């Protein structure tokens, strides 16, 4: 008896698991949190060019400097424009895809895998196609979409796409929507499939129209899915980098924070300022994601 007891005690050692994840805990603490701290420290230093190794404390100078930097406000504005169009566009097109498929249809698997493949390809590769599709040459000289519109006698639709002065970010959102819609579709499909069919059947027996079933029964059930989708799209949008780099590299009209940060670090070697931009991106994401993680954590513990 004593033997089984002691053995049981050994087996249920509550700290056993801790030691197995310890290496990962250390790695995350050092490489995620430690390095974020280090970056913040850089952002508060005077290391503003390649030749100075001046790590002295600069206060918030680099941050206030950003506010007066027209390049930064331009990139920030661009990012916001991009985010709005990208999030709304992806949400709607993903939702439409899932609505078309959720009841089940012959060929569902085929359509689904076609809608999702953009997630499997690098944007540096896909950028080649999109750069060409969104070429700004028009009419007889046009290639890509402008050429298609010209052939279809829809000349009014021809435009400068991502090289346009005012609409560049809206054009840039197109490939992003194209890439992420399938993912959103998959999340919504999972949401729909998680709702028991009886709920729908019962409403139908009660004489509810299909529209009412979606409006009052299905969509309310999908609230957590909507939240997940918004968080995923939002943080991806804030970080957007290779999509834009793959299409227009450092072009001024499509500059966003991540691109500007890259330029500041590599072209101007301004570590302090680059770090400050990175911290700005981080803070925007953290403001949204941390409450979300706490919420997930809570609902998780209730289970």
């Amino acid at each position: 008896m004593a033997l089984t007891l002691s053995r049981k005690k050994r087996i249920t050692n509550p700290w056993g698991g801790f030691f197995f994840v310890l290496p990962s805990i250390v790695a995350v603490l050092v490489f995620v949190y430690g390095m974020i701290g280090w970056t913040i420290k850089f952002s508060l230093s005077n290391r503003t060019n390649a030749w100075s190794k001046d790590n002295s404390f600069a206060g918030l100078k680099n941050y206030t400097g950003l506010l007066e930097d027209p390049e930064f406000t331009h990139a920030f504005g661009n990012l916001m424009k991009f985010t709005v169009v990208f999030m709304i566009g992806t949400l709607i097109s993903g939702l439409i895809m899932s609505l078309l498929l959720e009841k089940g249809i012959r060929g569902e698997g085929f359509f689904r895998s076609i809608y999702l493949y953009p997630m499997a390809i690098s944007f540096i590769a896909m950028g080649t196609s999109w750069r060409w599709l969104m070429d700004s040459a028009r009419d007889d000289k046009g290639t890509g979409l402008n050429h298609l519109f010209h052939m279809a006698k829809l000349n009014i639709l021809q435009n400068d796409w991502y090289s346009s002065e005012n609409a560049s970010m809206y054009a840039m959102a197109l490939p992003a929507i194209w890439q992420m819609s399938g993912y959103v579709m998959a999340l919504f499909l999972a949401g729909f499939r998680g709702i028991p069919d009886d709920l729908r059947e019962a409403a139908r027996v009660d004489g509810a129209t299909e529209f009412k079933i979606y409006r009052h029964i299905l969509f309310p059930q999908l609230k957590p899915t909507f939240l997940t989708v918004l968080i995923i799209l939002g943080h991806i949008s804030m970080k957007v980098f290779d999509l834009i780099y793959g299409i227009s590299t450092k072009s001024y009209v499509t500059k966003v924070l991540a691109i500007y940060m890259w330029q500041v670090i590599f072209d101007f070697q301004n570590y302090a300022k680059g770090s400050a931009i990175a911290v700005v991106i981080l803070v925007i994401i953290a403001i949204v994601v941390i409450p979300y993680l706490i919420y997930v954590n809570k609902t998780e513990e209730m289970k």
Partner: protein
Amino acid sequence: MSSDLVDRAIKSKDISRNKRKLSGSGQFWLAFRYSALTILFIIAALPIYIMVVNSVKGITGVTQSAAFLPPTHLNFDAWGPTWKVLREPMQRTLFFVVQSSIISAIVGSINGFVFAKWRFKGSTFIFTLFLFGMFIPYQAIMIPLTQFNHWAGIGGTIYVLVVAHVIYGIPICTLIFRNYYAAIPNELIEAARVDGAGMVRIFRTIILPLSIPGFVVVLIWQFTSAWNDFLFAIFLTGGSPKLAVATTALNFITGSGNQVYYGNNMTASLIVSIPTLLVYMFLGRYFLRGLLSGSLKG
């Protein structure tokens, strides 16, 4: 997302019950759905279609008027020279991606098991700390990471990318495995415990044999994201040609100044995409699984 939900979500809906004859409006809606699905299909497929047809028209054979049309005859002229440039970077990518994916999967499986079945005080909090790592912009760690690499003596080698993908892959791999293991009934583990097995032994003899699908999911996930990664590659290798990987080499080919050689660029982009496309074609189900179980709620 929990494993049973993912299971339900990735299966096509069974429509065998709906065999009854459709009414007039039912037929209209079905036709409408298929038309909409087809339009979306064309939009989704267009960029890859462009890439494929224009990769077989030779190096400069892409003419404006025929760019959307399939080639009149197959011309693989662009493939040889492009492959010559891309071969070494792609081999290098394969070399580091295989390593980082395998290490990631092992680490993820151990962590996932602990967070799902062998919790300790504060494990939920630590798990949440991990999860935040999934959302951070890597720009916010890039400069210190570069310095760490120099300090650790791996600066200028391909191992910088192994380290980056393993470490910053910890959150997602842990999450996928945790959700996978959460679906395994606790009774199974309790029964083994009663029989006197320790947790390590339970992991080795009961959990690991059940983990093969989980490993496939994580391996594919890590493979695809590391292969397609551009941010770490360009920051950590500093664009050095000696360390060029698939995406940075491709960017060098298609980057500014070379934009007129469409045939060449399309071919290069296609070649770089082939490995991940093949994985997607044959193991797409597992890729979708990774996408879904790597998302938190739903």
